[in-house]
């Protein structure tokens, strides 16, 4: 029993310390993002790496999820002859919920892992120490460009996923369920208000912060060689995915009661 309480206490302390470390990194990053010199070249490189290179996988997942939502809802809707509401269902669930979270999870897996692995191996080969001795703060040089790139690219990817998901739903509805083109378009955009899109975008900004800060934090505190890098990579993906899902639930609850 004593052991149990001790273990519980220790993991509670660990969690608080982790949250503290991550928050410190977050505020330091905000500080360095605002400090000149700005590095457009580096930010652009990261945008390509994080945003453009994620397009294929984002396309694939968003399209098939659009298809699945349409098919799944058709299964029920046809019974009550309410197929015409399928487009609305697809567009609203995509923009408010599915596109932001799915894109964030995909990016956490792809980009979060690569950030943690890259910074982690820089840490174990003392490249991060070397940056410091060259009077260049690692947070400014390594974290800030990644932060800006994720912060801009994840919302853009999310909007893109909204669109692709709707196209997925369209494909099923028009070619399989027999809705007309104009009907689908009308029922997609009629119930959709700007607020739905903004809700999704707001969440994706939070997810971007989570992915960047958790992955950079994991990478920069790696110890113990290649094994440490592997561990950090896994932790970066697992912890950011968990935080994404929890904060998504939190946001959804808040928006439900506020808006």
């Amino acid at each position, binding site marked *: 029993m004593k052991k149990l309480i001790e273990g519980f206490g220790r993991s509670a302390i660990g969690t608080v310390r982790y949250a503290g470390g991550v928050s410190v990194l977050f505020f330091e990053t905000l500080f360095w993002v605002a400090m000149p010199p700005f590095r457009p070249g580096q930010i652009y490189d990261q945008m390509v790496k994080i945003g453009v290179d994620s397009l294929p996988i984002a396309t694939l997942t968003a399209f098939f999820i659009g298809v699945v939502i349409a098919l799944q809802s058709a299964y029920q809707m046809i019974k009550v002859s309410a197929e015409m509401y399928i487009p609305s269902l697809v567009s609203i669930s995509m923009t408010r919920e599915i596109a932001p979270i799915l894109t964030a999870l995909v990016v956490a897996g792809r980009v979060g892992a690569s950030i943690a692995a890259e910074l982690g191996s820089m840490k174990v*080969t003392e*490249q991060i*120490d*070397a*940056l410091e*001795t060259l*009077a260049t703060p690692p947070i400014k040089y390594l974290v800030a460009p990644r932060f800006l790139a994720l912060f801009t690219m994840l919302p853009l990817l999310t909007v893109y996923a909204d669109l692709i998901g709707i196209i997925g739903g369209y494909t099923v509805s028009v070619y399989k369920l027999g809705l007309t083109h104009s009907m689908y378009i009308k029922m997609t955009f009629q119930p959709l208000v700007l607020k739905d899109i903004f809700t999704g975008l707001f969440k994706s900004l939070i997810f971007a912060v989570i992915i960047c800060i958790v992955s950079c934090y994991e990478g920069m505190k790696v110890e113990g060689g290649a094994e440490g890098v592997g561990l950090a990579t896994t932790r970066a993906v697992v912890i950011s995915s968990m935080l994404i899902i929890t904060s998504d639930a939190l946001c959804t609850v808040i928006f439900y009661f506020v808006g």
Partner: protein
Amino acid sequence: MIEATNVVKAFNNRLVLNRLSLKIEKGETLVIIGRSGCGKSVFLKHLIGLVKPDQGEIIIDGINVAALTFKQMSNLRMRFGMLFQAAALFDSMTVGENVGFNLIEHTNLSSQAIRQRVEESLELVGLRGIQDLKPAELSGGMKKRVALARAICMKPEILLYDEPTTGLDPIMADAINDLIVQLHDKLKVTSVVVTHDMVSAYKIGTRIAMMYQGHIVEIGTPEQIKNTSNPVVRQFITGSAVGPITDINFKSLEQVEGDRK
């Protein structure tokens, strides 16, 4: 002048530096010798503020390194050049970008001028025409020399070398020794060299300090060290497997620490 007083540093409750005190005079080349894992690299990192002491202080020209603001620390670091044990080249950049990192980041020189300066630094360490290669394409010895070129590119006042000759062939090692001596003679840089290569230590050192059990057990000119009566130092410099360092009856650092408590 660099002055370390009673520096104590522990990692995960394991004592690495134990009340280490050491004075390094301006313009000298101080060689620190000691076994692998005794904390030489950790000590070097204290000098440039990468690691903060748990107790004690490091004073450089009257400035306490642990108490600097970010800006002061940057200014101080611009006076340093550091060669890391494993080179620590940025592997996402070319050799040229590595060597010229400080010039690119902290000066307004044209890329033409930077290329020129980088080539000069590379020539000093016996390399040329490799600016556009990536570190992954270099051999271990070349990496080390590129890292040395990066350390001297800004013409620093203080150079910290972490095992500059380890992993080099004897001829290249001697060339690096010559370079260190040259930098000392011509540019009057203050150098701190960590090594366990005794040939190199005798050749470049104006003084040699032996680190053991977390502090400096003996310090003196190469002559004094050669003729020391301290059995620990004797065993190290003669490279003998038998002696107080390897004697299991001799107190280990943990035991010394236990006695102190």
